[in-house]
């Protein structure tokens, strides 16, 4: 008798169930659409923005401080730059931030959490968690401030600062779950079978935590943007003339309430982005929950 691998469920059926669970809640779809729109705008900003030159060094005092109109949908700022176009480029910076921070932080954070959770009684587990505790104890803004104070204020350094503050939350999340899953019978069975610790951590435990990790990643999309905007607002993030949502709010705040559009639209954009990521996070959470709903 030939021993061949028999095909399982067709892929569409396997992943269709995930989509079904995600889409049960209309709001998750709204979030997905919103963020998809943001991503699209960010990628194609140079081509679809009405006044791409507004994103750089550009001055046109004839067009300065115009309220929203047909030609400038979101108005212009004090230098005559189109707010909408700057917003679109601002999204680029925000999304760059999200991608950089999450790609730097998620994997090391998760791996450390797995190790700390599985080897919970060993000394290095304690070391890992105490180091994580130290980073968590410092408020992210303060941490970012100190990093930026050592390096110069600027885009990349803001990324690094946030990345430094972010990893321990993943470690904590994974540690909590891994330390309880390690006591499940199937982990004992794997140990009894002689499986290596690496196998157990990554093949037995991790798949069961994936849902929480992905949910957090989704929510973090919004959080990192918020922190990034906060840093920019105090002048530690992107430097002029790079358009960034936080900087735009800060610059425009001097002109409130008369020229409200300079600050308001970037602020609304931040709200939309965070809301979008939160709604996606909700949907991702649903995707991995095993309720019969």
């Amino acid at each position: 008798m030939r021993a061949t691998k028999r095909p399982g469920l067709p892929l569409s059926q396997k992943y269709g169930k995930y989509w079904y669970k995600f889409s049960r809640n209309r709001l998750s779809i709204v979030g997905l659409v919103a963020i998809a729109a943001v991503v699209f705008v960010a990628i194609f900003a140079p081509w679809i923005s009405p006044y791409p030159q507004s994103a750089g060094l550009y001055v046109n005092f004839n067009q300065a401080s115009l309220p929203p109109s047909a030609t400038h949908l979101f108005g212009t700022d004090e230098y005559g730059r189109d707010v909408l176009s700057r917003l679109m480029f601002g999204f680029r910076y925000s999304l760059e931030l999200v991608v950089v921070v999450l790609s730097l932080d998620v994997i090391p954070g998760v791996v450390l959490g797995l190790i700390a959770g599985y080897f919970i009684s060993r000394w290095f587990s304690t070391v890992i968690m105490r180091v994580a505790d130290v980073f968590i104890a410092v408020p992210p803004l303060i941490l970012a401030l100190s990093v930026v104070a050592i390096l110069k204020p600027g885009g990349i350094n803001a990324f690094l600062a946030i990345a430094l503050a972010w990893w321990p939350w993943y470690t904590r999340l994974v540690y909590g779950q891994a330390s309880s899953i390690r006591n499940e019978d199937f982990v004992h069975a794997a140990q009894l079978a002689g499986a290596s610790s690496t196998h157990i951590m990554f093949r037995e435990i991790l798949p069961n935590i994936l849902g929480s990790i992905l949910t957090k990643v989704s929510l973090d999309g919004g959080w990192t943007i918020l922190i990034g905007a906060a840093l920019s607002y105090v002048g530690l993030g992107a430097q002029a003339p790079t358009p960034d949502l936080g900087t735009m709010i800060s610059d425009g705040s001097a002109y409130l309430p008369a020229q409200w559009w300079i600050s308001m639209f970037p602020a609304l954009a931040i709200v939309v982005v965070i809301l979008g990521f939160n709604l996606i996070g909700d949907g991702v959470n649903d995707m991995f929950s095993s309720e019969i709903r």
Partner: protein
Amino acid sequence: MSMSLVQVENLKVEYKVYEGWLKVLNGVNISVGKGEKVGIIGESACGKTTTVKSMLRLLASNGRITQGKVTYHGDNVLDMSRGDLTSMRRKKVSMIFQDPSAALNPVFTIKEQMYDIIRVSADERLSTSEVHERAVGFLKQAALPEPDRILDSYPFQLSGGMKQRVNIAFALISANELLVADEPGTSLDVTIEDQIMRLLKQIVDERGLSIILISHALGTVKNFVDRVYVMYAGTIVEEGPTDQVFSDPRHPYTRMLIDSIPKLTGGGVPEGILGQVPSYLTPPNGCRFVTRCPYKMPVCDGAMPALYSVADGQAAACYLYDEKYGAKK
């Protein structure tokens, strides 16, 4: 023949899941008289809990009652107004669940939980000392020593048996007519389960309550209830007086079920029932036991058999007992 207290007529219930609709209950008929002790036995996922939850309108949000009626004292429970339903739940009917811990809120003391229930089910306003007195009274009825200490405890400080007795005490507060007990002893040790079932029987007999006892352990049910319903895959396959059904089971499933229980007197490991419960997504059109029945006939695939009377008070839903298809033994 005692007056009927609860009547379930032709109940059909479905659950919505990703793959479609699970057609669980397929026309369930149950009646419980005043002061009567009735049992529902069957294996897991056969619909016993779904039946009683439908009766009390506690069905999960993805469940739907597609047909049927549940009458309590003649009133249709499924159509009742919120107010009437709440009043029924507060004063007349109560339920004891399988997991003693799940029914108790872990962050409140027993006292806090109990006082709430007493206050809500009382007709008049009670002072704190009156509530306390009643609480102690109920705990004593549930054979709990040191009621004051229990009242001050959190659920995690109590053992499984004690928690279940607390649940019984809670149920006594509002169950003046009907008690529903869903596998009350299953998660307890054998000797403790023995104690709890004796206590329950004593309480029910003393107060003249009706009880619906659900269990998958036939032995537990045998010494307790007067009449029993055997359920399989969402249908009642046999019903009748307990001793009769157990000593002379007529439905093939009941027979095979009883045969698959290992006997205390030895005799080797029984065979069990080959095959599996059919999927609720695509249940058979006819008798749901047809996939595993050794006496299967062509007519069994067609339509659900009705309950045929096989002996005094005993009935089995099987075509074997339909004169047209031969009355086989």
